[in-house]
């Protein structure tokens, strides 16, 4: 059997009237990997996810999912796919268990099989004791977990998550990441769109960074960082009304300098050496932070903007 990616997109484009939401992007997703689509709001992540979900028709280019054409084989693809929409879309007037059994029935499971499957999944997402609860009083993290359980009802090979942890507190985020990691270990392919670089770094084997509908970087989090930005960053703050003078003087010191409204970032191979040089030149900052470069920095250097404003 020839090797085929789970998702294959070539010059994939989506237009809404005059606006191009996704502009000729090309990528492939391998079986069993966690693939991330990272970018700020409005970058085209959700539109790309909706096309992969087979919900939104492609304007032009090629899209193959599980070796099928989403336009012609939507139901067949969806039978093997789990979708976790950004806003959960839980059935507010059904209880927790009914949300799962109803969804299982949509896939043609018998009533008894649907109840069994719901019980298994409530255990997996640790909601068993809330099975008879209404949906409304659940916390944000619980609702998210219920949406994940629902997407797993049909034992999908491919799971699609749009902004999986937006709006969740840190504890809820970590619990969710842990469940997603378990799914990955079982061999499920995960595709997640996020504007959190820590989430992308934590979970993704490979990712694309999107901006204005285009791909501005692709690869594993480590290779993206090592190939596109110097390894270390010095974050500097100064007691001065304007940072412009400082930024000009710092350009000679590091490999790259980025000026943000409240601070200046100096990129270099060795952060401590950069700091020493700054002091030697008589430019003492009010605060200094030396850290490793992140995907956030990759995005900043590629686009001149930050991921989260």
């Amino acid at each position, binding site marked *: 059997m020839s090797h085929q990616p789970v998702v294959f997109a070539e010059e994939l484009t989506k237009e809404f009237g005059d606006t191009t939401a996704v502009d000729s992007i090309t990528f492939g997703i391998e079986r069993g990997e966690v693939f991330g689509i990272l970018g700020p709001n409005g970058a085209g992540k959700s539109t790309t996810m909706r096309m992969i*979900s087979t*919900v*939104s*028709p492609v304007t032009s280019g090629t899209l193959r999912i599980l070796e099928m054409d989403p336009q012609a084989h939507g*139901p067949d693809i*969806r*039978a093997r796919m789990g*979708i976790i*929409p950004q*806003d959960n*879309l839980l*059935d*507010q*007037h*059904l209880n927790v268990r*009914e949300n799962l059994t*109803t*969804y299982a*029935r*949509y*896939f*043609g*499971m*018998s*009533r008894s099989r649907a109840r069994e499957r719901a019980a298994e999944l409530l255990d997996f997402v640790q909601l068993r004791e809330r099975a008879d609860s209404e949906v409304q009083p659940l916390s944000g993290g619980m609702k998210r977990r219920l949406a994940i359980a629902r*997407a797993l009802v*049909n034992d999908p090979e491919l799971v699609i998550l749009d902004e999986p942890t937006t709006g969740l507190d840190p504890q809820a985020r970590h619990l969710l990441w842990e469940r997603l990691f378990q799914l990955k270990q079982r061999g499920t392919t995960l595709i997640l769109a996020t504007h959190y670089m820590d989430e992308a770094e934590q979970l993704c084997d490979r990712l694309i960074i999107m901006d204005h509908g285009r791909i501005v970087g692709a690869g594993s989090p480590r290779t993206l960082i090592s190939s596109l930005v110097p390894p270390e960053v010095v974050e500097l703050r100064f007691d001065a009304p304007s940072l412009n003078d400082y930024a000009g003087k710092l350009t000679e010191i590091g490999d790259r300098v980025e000026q943000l409204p409240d601070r200046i970032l100096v990129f270099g191979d060795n952060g401590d050496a950069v700091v020493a040089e700054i002091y030697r030149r008589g430019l003492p900052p009010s605060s200094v932070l030396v850290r490793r470069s992140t995907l956030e920095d990759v995005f900043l250097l590629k686009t001149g903007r930050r991921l989260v404003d």
Partner: protein
Amino acid sequence: MEFLVSHPTITVLERHLLLYRRLWRASAFSLFVVPALFLLSMGFGVGSFVPRIGNTDYAMWIVPGLLALLAFQTAVNESTMGIYTDFEWIGAFHVMRHTRVRITDMIVGWLLYVLVVVELATVAFLVVSWAFGVPQPALVVLVAPLVCALLAVSVAAPTTAFAATVRDEGHFHLLNQFGVMPTIMVSGVFFPVGQLPAPVRPLAWISPLWHATEINRAAALDSFTAGPLTLHVAVLLAWAVLGLVWARTAFQRRLAS
């Protein structure tokens, strides 16, 4: 059998019925109270001023029309806010779109649900009018559920389509003012269509409510004639088919946007 029970259309119907069961008590109350109020106010209230239409007692004359009106209103009411809520607030159809359920299943499953509710209302009405002592020819008991079913689909299909295009609840007031209310006035429920000014009368001919009222009344008064019956059924079917086609397009647009 399992194939049928787990058919996507049936699983959609099941979801709507599950929700209906939650509201069962409130709706059971209105199921019987609404027909009672209809009969008291129109049948006996107005009926005491209008003793006879032709050779028929007014209460006897108006009951088949009220029955059609009840089916009409139930179908419209369910299909406006019900569809709007499932698209706009719950996202129920968007969720179905993530599964094996096709758009046709969503629409047919919904219409089956409306049928169940309309039939419950129809049976409740027949029981109440029987309790009030309005004579119930066997023909009405046989025909009315069928007519109400056909009327329900012919009204619910286009209403469902319209509701799928609506992003603002205010549009339902327009539907009510310019669609529902005029339809009720011109459909010969309360008085014969012949009483309408001539230029307005053609409105009755396109009204599904008038055609259903005519069949129901013919059954109640035992005055069936084959020609008009075929025509009445044909118009109702036309509304149903056009409504279904429109609903398909409306759902496709809404779910792809």
